[in-house]
């Protein structure tokens, strides 16, 4: 049993708390916004100058001047603030965001990670990834546990170009939740059908097991019917 991309996003949302200020990167991370507990006030930051990104607008509610970092139209949450790039990066690099949730190609056991230089992509682009990576209080990584070809993405040492050194706090994959500590990777949660040994087999670095490591309990689908679990 594995988490879908939405399932990973759902699980990450469970780790966010009222009062958190969070930047969600492209890919799986941005899906987290669909699974936030709407009874709690969690502020989403967008690097292009929003604190308090709201849901996407209906077509007739679109404001052409209001987009989020992914370039899609957005709305503002109650209590939102608009500002310019210098203040936005003050938040990002200055240690003010509670969490940055980012995708990754690789995460190393020392907390290094790589996400900006996509293999096979000849035109490089980095955006605000490196600023978030050095600046957010906690770096959460959302990614599949292994590549399409089955190679581990949690590794002893990154071979892809680094985004930042030694900054990853927690990794959420399709089969596990793993902390990155001073002592390396620590398994905290596994999906049903997996166990520490099977996770280790898919992990390219040493993996210890937390005393309270347990199985995740995830619903089959979200309230809106989006599948959170795959059974392949």
């Amino acid at each position, binding site marked *: 049993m594995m988490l879908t991309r939405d399932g990973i996003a759902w699980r990450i949302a469970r780790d966010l708390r009222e009062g958190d200020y969070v930047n969600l990167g492209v890919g799986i991370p941005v899906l987290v916004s669909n699974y936030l507990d709407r009874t709690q006030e969690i502020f989403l930051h967008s690097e292009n100058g929003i604190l308090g990104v709201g849901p996407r607008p209906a077509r007739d509610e679109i404001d052409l001047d209001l*987009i989020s970092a992914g370039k899609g139209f957005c709305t503002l949450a109650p209590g939102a603030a608009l500002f310019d790039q210098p203040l936005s990066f003050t938040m990002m690099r200055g240690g003010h965001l509670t969490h940055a949730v980012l995708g990754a190609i690789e995460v190393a056991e020392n907390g290094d990670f790589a996400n900006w230089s996509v293999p096979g992509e000849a*035109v490089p682009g980095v955006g605000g990834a490196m*600023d978030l990576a050095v600046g957010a209080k906690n770096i959460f990584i959302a990614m599949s546990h292994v590549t399409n070809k089955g190679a581990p993405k949690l590794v002893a040492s990154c071979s892809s170009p680094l985004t930042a050194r030694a900054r990853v706090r927690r990794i959420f994959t399709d089969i596990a939740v793993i902390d990155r500590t001073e002592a390396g990777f620590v398994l905290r949660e596994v999906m049903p059908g997996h166990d520490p040994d099977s996770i280790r087999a898919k992990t390219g670095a040493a993996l210890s097991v937390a005393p309270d490591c347990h199985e995740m309990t995830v619903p089959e689908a979200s309230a809106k019917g989006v599948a959170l679990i795959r059974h392949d």
Partner: protein
Amino acid sequence: MIDKTVQSCREAVAQVFDGASIMLGGFGNVGMPAQLIEALREQGSRDLTLISNGAGTGPYALGALVGDGRVRKVIASFPSPSAAEFRTRYLAGEIELELVPQGTLVERIRAGGCGLGGFYTPTAAGTDLAAGKETRVIDGQEYLLELPLKADFAFLKAHWGDRLGNLMYRGTMRNFNTVMATAAITVVAEVDRLVAVGEIPPDAVHTPGIFVDRLVCVERHPKVVELPREASAT
């Protein structure tokens, strides 16, 4: 009476010269001075260096300017996959790219505008983008030395402007515009509406007129007011 307004985008960009460096505001289409960029295409200067977050969002304005083959170099953080014109020119080796992390790009422009000689940032330390850069350990952390960026011109997009050059933005239009306004020799703004002096309350002036040399009031570029077939997600 001070009057910084000009009547056409053509007039607004007339002074651009071959080899000029130009800062372009905008993040995606929002806050991008699309009409000034189109006027620049007609104006025809060559060997331009563009400083901008991206390298275009489609085959118009910035994307088209790059496609015209008159851009020698782009200093950007994210020449996105939708920048097809840039992609083609870049892969053909016809255009140089200086890739700068976005926060470093912002801060280098700010340093240029506020008279600093450089700064130390933790961003990109230990990565490939630190190649060739001086490093320094301060208080136990490694930083890169980054130098200021200035330009011959900055093209801005604002919502309201007055004849004094005071500008007000809306939504996420501020992005790079406010800081680029401080860092170029000649600063030109495209505005949606020209208002009387005083209509922008003193507290709501985002870019004070001291930074602005010329402004032109023009309808938005048709491509940037076009709604996508389906509104894309956040």
